[in-house]
């Protein structure tokens, strides 16, 4: 009887061929990974490139017209006096009403001084790469075209940028309003979606009988997670902004100066948007609690509710929280539904109640990138970095939470 397998030389050739195919596939997968890394790096580089670089500007009025002290050495009291003397009383009163002038910080007052009195006039901005590679060229160019201009390398992303509200001048604009708006938004969304989503997941996993009705509901929840976000925006517009206006505008509670386009409407819309995500993640977390634990509880005479409350939920909680954090990240980055439910694109007042008008980080970024002036593109890049850092922090905490929760049963 002959051996059905190839022998010696034939086997050697076959082995060589097998290794060749294996190496080929390995190379293909490696190049796929490289493409992914290159694209991500390009994205990061593009953002960072915009957020740092040269700016050339002139003072419309020389600072020496207001004070003899150099700008860097101005104290808070000096600035207060200068502002009071030189601003019109109407403008001063308006600023004072937004936030009493005496309570403002030195850097805040300095910004006001530069913005309102000295009035910076930006002549041009350059990206980080240009600034580093063609520094000399830029300096010569600026010196020739704008002999009075000051050219300096600046980071658009500064601590000041984080705590300054919106401004019509890019040099003085910040993301405080947008960051607070985003926080209000995800706060309302999660307060709304987490209890409802967890409750629905508990019912589906622990109580609902397995029949055609529950499987239809399950399929629909899975599909809802993939519905384009603009559709949720339309839903939010119809239901929260229009239909429930007395509630979402706060007029039920005696607030008269707003309409339905409030942070509450947007938060509820985001809540609906992340609800399927939260339900699915909570279901997975509940499924991961081993049945032996439920049986142990039932075995000592626990009711279904005692089993769920004392054993299933505490053990599923880290997983549920992980899902919620991922849902928050999703809500934080969503733009389309906010445009539909009416986020304001220019607003300098912090949201201070659910019935406030609001803006959010992605909206702010979108708005700034559509402006013609290059300095707005620079602050858009800085705002993108802020958003990405927020998202990365949230995702990292989700991973940490999940790792900590991996316990043995």
């Amino acid at each position, binding site marked *: 009887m002959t051996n059905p397998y190839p022998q010696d030389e034939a086997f050697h050739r076959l082995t060589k061929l097998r290794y060749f195919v294996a190496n080929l596939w390995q190379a293909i997968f490696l190049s796929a990974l490289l493409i992914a890394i290159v694209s991500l790096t390009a994205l990061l580089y593009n953002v960072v490139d915009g957020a740092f670089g040269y700016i050339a500007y002139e003072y419309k009025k020389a600072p020496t017209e207001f004070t003899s002290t150099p700008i860097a050495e101005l104290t808070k009291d000096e600035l207060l006096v200068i502002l009071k003397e030189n601003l019109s009383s109407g403008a001063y009163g308006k600023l004072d009403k937004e936030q009493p002038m005496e309570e403002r910080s030195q850097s805040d007052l300095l910004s006001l001084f530069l913005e309102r009195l000295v009035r910076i006039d930006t002549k041009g901005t350059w990206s980080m790469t240009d600034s580093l590679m063609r520094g000399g060229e830029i300096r010569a160019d600026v010196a020739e075209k704008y002999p009075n201009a000051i050219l300096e390398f600046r980071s658009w992303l500064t601590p000041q940028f984080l705590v300054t509200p919106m401004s019509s001048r890019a040099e003085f604009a910040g993301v405080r309003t947008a960051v607070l708006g985003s926080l209000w938004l995800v706060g309302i969304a999660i307060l709304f979606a987490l209890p409802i989503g967890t409750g629905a997941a508990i019912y589906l996993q622990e109580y609902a*009988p*397995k029949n055609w009705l529950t499987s239809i509901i399950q399929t629909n929840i899975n599909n809802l997670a993939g519905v384009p976000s603009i559709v949720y925006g339309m839903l939010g517009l119809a239901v929260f902004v229009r239909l429930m206006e007395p509630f979402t505008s706060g007029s039920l509670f005696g607030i008269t100066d707003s309409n339905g386009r409030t942070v509450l409407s947007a938060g509820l819309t985001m809540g609906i948007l992340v609800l399927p995500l939260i339900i699915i993640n909570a279901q997975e977390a509940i499924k991961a609690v*081993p049945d*032996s*634990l*439920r*049986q*142990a*509880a*039932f*075995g*000592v*005479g*626990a*009711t279904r509710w*005692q089993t769920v409350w*004392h*054993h299933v939920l505490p*053990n599923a909680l880290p997983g549920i929280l992980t899902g919620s954090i991922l849902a928050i990240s999703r809500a934080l980055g969503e733009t389309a539904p906010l445009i539909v439910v009416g986020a304001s694109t220019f607003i300098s007042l912090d949201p201070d109640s659910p019935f406030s008008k609001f803006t959010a980080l992605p909206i702010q970024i979108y708005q700034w990138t559509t402006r013609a002036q290059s300095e707005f593109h620079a602050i858009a890049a800085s705002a993108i970095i802020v958003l990405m850092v927020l998202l990365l922090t949230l995702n990292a905490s989700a991973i940490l939470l999940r790792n900590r929760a991996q*316990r*043995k*049963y």
Partner: protein
Amino acid sequence: MQNNQPEYSIETKNLFIFYGTFPAVSEVNMKIEKQKITAIIGPSGCGKSTLLRAFNRMNDFVPSSYVTGEILMRGQNLYAPNVDPVQVRRSIGMVFQKPNPFPKSIYDNIAWGAKINGFKGNMDELVEESLRGAALWDEVKDKLKKSAYELSGGQQQRLCIARTIAIQPDIILMDEPASALDPISTLRIEELMQELKKNYTIIIVTHNMQQAARVSDYTAMMMLTTDGSRSGTVIEFSETKTIFTNPKDKRTEDYVTGRFG
């Protein structure tokens, strides 16, 4: 009641257990004596665990499972519509195949079952009593607040027994309680069972025939029915001695002598 008259703890009458339309266990009639150990033996897949779980209505959690016939405890059918399964499990405790302590401290493992059942007495005393009852007290008395997961498999299983006796059931069901344990831990569990039967009726499912012969007073031999329905039933039920030395049924003899199964 006469002295020689055996006292029964639980009995089944014409019991069938179905999964959907499939009768996993059919026509079981058993009278289980009080404060004795009854072993259920038989080959894999013949419905031993299913029968055991029917006694405290654990099968209720399997969708589409239902029972016909009766399981009577003090004259009350456990499957009567007015019977609450939670109360059944309160008076018929269960120890599972794999040790499944709660992911809590040793103390809380015992206290939790007592607490949810409205225990009003001294909890510290109950915990100590139950741990002594399960022959675990000396090993864990200094680390009651430690996680139950720090215990060895055998200790965990005894903790599960302690947890069960803490709620003072009448009957303890054991589903292959030693199959995941090493021989020394197994021996300790078997010794413990002899202690426990002074106060409790014990029904144990086991794969290990030597174990059944060592620990039990009565043995039920289960086997698939020969009519082709793949349903399990009790083919012989009598004193353990009889089953192992003088079985009436040829299939029992083949099984206990190792010629089959």
